[in-house]
């Protein structure tokens, strides 16, 4: 199995943890993993990404344009920024919640992410939008963005990993007090997709 996965968002949103969980799950299945991510200045509110490459015969941890099987967007605008990486027939999972940059607030912009979501839906066939404000409110926590998106990615089938793979890696990598909440987030994402929202 070869999968190219792009995670993207704004510094501080938790893309790195999601990337670690996917790599951990792949490793548990004996699948080779290479990855690359943004570290440094851009982590301070800048655009950040993780590239993950699962499978054999991979030389470089970076993904070429038009080669990603899936983009997991933690922010609508950032998902659009990474769209050139998506291959034909690829999957997009995206959070509906915009993160307004200071530059936009200063300019008096009403950036709310909706035109970004419209653009993705117009250009890509396989799109799952997660209404994260609603999901976080239903789950009673703002800390589940990454598990919601990861759960949706698993359910879409585009990761090539199953929900049990992610549950196992949560148990081994995340402090036990967060397990129940994270499992609920995975389950929530599954229900959203089962309902075909």
């Amino acid at each position: 199995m070869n999968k190219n996965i792009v995670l993207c968002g704004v510094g501080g949103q938790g893309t790195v943890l999601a990337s670690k969980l996917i790599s951990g799950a792949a490793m548990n299945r004996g699948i080779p993993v290479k990855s690359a991510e943004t570290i440094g200045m851009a982590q301070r509110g800048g655009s950040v990404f993780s590239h993950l490459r699962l499978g054999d015969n991979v030389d470089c941890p970076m993904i070429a344009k038009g080669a990603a099987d899936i983009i997991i967007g933690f922010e609508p605008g950032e998902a659009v920024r990474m769209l050139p990486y998506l291959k034909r027939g690829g999957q997009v999972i995206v959070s509906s919640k915009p993160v307004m940059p200071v530059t936009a607030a200063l300019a008096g912009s009403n950036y709310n992410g909706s035109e970004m979501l419209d653009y993705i839906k117009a250009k890509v066939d396989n799109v799952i939008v997660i209404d994260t404000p609603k999901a976080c409110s239903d789950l009673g926590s703002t800390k589940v963005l990454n598990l919601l998106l990861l759960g949706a990615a698993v359910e879409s089938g585009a990761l090539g990993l199953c929900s049990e793979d992610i549950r196992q890696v949560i148990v081994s990598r995340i402090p036990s007090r967060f397990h129940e909440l994270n499992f609920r987030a995975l389950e929530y994402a599954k229900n959203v997709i089962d309902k075909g929202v």
Partner: protein
Amino acid sequence: MGQEFLMGNEAIAMGAIAAGVNLVAGYPGTPSTEVLETVAKRRPDNTYVEWSINEKVAMEVGAGAAYTGARVMVTMKQVGLNVATDPLMSLEYIGVKGGMVILVADDPGPISSQTEQDTRHFSRFSKLPCFDPSTVQEAYEMVQEAFEYSEKYRTPVFFRSTTRVSHGYAVVDLKEPNDYHVNSIEGFVKDTKRWVIFPKLSYQAHMDIEKRNKELAGVFSAYSRNYILNDDSKFPAKGIATGGFSFTYACEALRELGSVKLLKVSTPHPFPEELAVKFLAGLDEVLCIEELDPVIERELIYICGKYQLPVKIYGKMSGHVHTAGENSIDSVKGNIASFLGLTITDSAAVAGNELAEMPVLPVRPPVLCAGCPHRASFYAVKQAMKGKKTIFCGDIGCYTMGNAMPLDMVDTCLCMGAGLGIAQGVRHMEPDTACFAFVGDSTFFAAAIPGVINAVYNQANMTLVVLDNSTTAMTGHQPHPGTGQTMMGDVVDKVSIEGILKGIGLKFVETVDPLQYDKAVSTVTRAAEQPGVKAIIFKSPCIAIVKSDKCLSVNQDKCINCRKCIREIGCPALIIRDDRVVIDDSLCTGCGLCSQICPALAIGGEDNE
């Protein structure tokens, strides 16, 4: 043999541990920092690790240890190497007894740096051998070999990484601890003819070094990490020469474009000359794929001249490859495709011509975090000095981002500690300008103290503003002399910045919490009125270290929607929703700066209804 999913820097650290490293010293700097941190975390009991106060001191600590026969690693980013150059250039003539690997992480792009300098060039300048790994696994193995060569040839060696190697991750095959090299340390043996640099010694050493490097060019031609691939190329007259991370881009490109004869250079200096001659034999044209400077390209041109080989060498100098910034799979694929006369098929979901329809994307320059005390410090100085002729000299750290609008409080930034000297120079030529230098706590210890002494001695008139957030924030929160913690886990006496400044002789040294807005402004006003060299220490911890559970909100009944808060301080937690200012509760730390400047007193805590 075990396996772990490791970052390149972690793999380099594990490689050094497997090589029996006895001492590691360095100064934090992206993208090098995790090497030393990982050694500190994973080290055997007999390994000593320290964050030195700067790279020069780290190099000297490393030299001393290597004189005893210890295996040593010194870590830094590429601009840190500039700081360490003085001891390094002499150390090359003296040499070492124990293996000494100088880990320098270069930053093509640059992504988190001031320069795009190339340590491969530096290695040529300093005459030191240089190892340049391409992958995480190779970095793990190669660093162990670098120790062997260093010890064998009694010279420090460079281990040059770049951002994508250092910060890439891969599953790495690791040695079992039983197979680690164990280094026995002989101890320092007095010998003034060996350890004391004098012109006569340097002359002799210079001849020895040149002889050794000639020998190494041959030795490296047989080194297994320099090699030729794809002798059965579909393009018999063409070749690609590459090294470092670009090797992986080239391999990915060739998977798609077809096999081409390829030279992988893992020791850019001394260059594996015999191997290169073998590679060039029978070729008409070679494309060099490398990041930063055209090091391989120059070497091949030199070799073609020396051996009179009729091969055209293309790369950055010939204009076939872009001269600055990072490579990518796509740029390299494009370079190689046009070199081979091929076209690339587009497999993207959104074809290139459709991308033009993309909506305007939010621009996200890096900014000070919500609640960052530096924002309050800059704002206090800005308000205190409003309407006066000023220059605000910035420095290296998170607070460089004080340049962003709307703060706009960094007029200059050059290198670690430079703001102090620049402020003095401006003032000598423009006596009517109030000159400020901003420096963080870690940078203060690393590079600013000589500048303060210079200012006092030479009767400068300036205000030093120390932004003390009790950590080295930008590189990921390393301890420093002011924190009272060491990388060996010891709690030690804190070195006092205020004490140092008073010891130097400053009469005006005041420490104030920048989040107490009125007090902060009045302190700046008083400092600016004093003659001579004054210092303000704005002390408030980094919000990433001291986590806050406070959060403010905007009382929409009181808010007059003037947006002064957004316009003046630009905190990322202040956003506009449905044309009203609201506070993003996932970002706000409750620092209270906005509430202190709100003219309608509309911002407050839980009781703000």
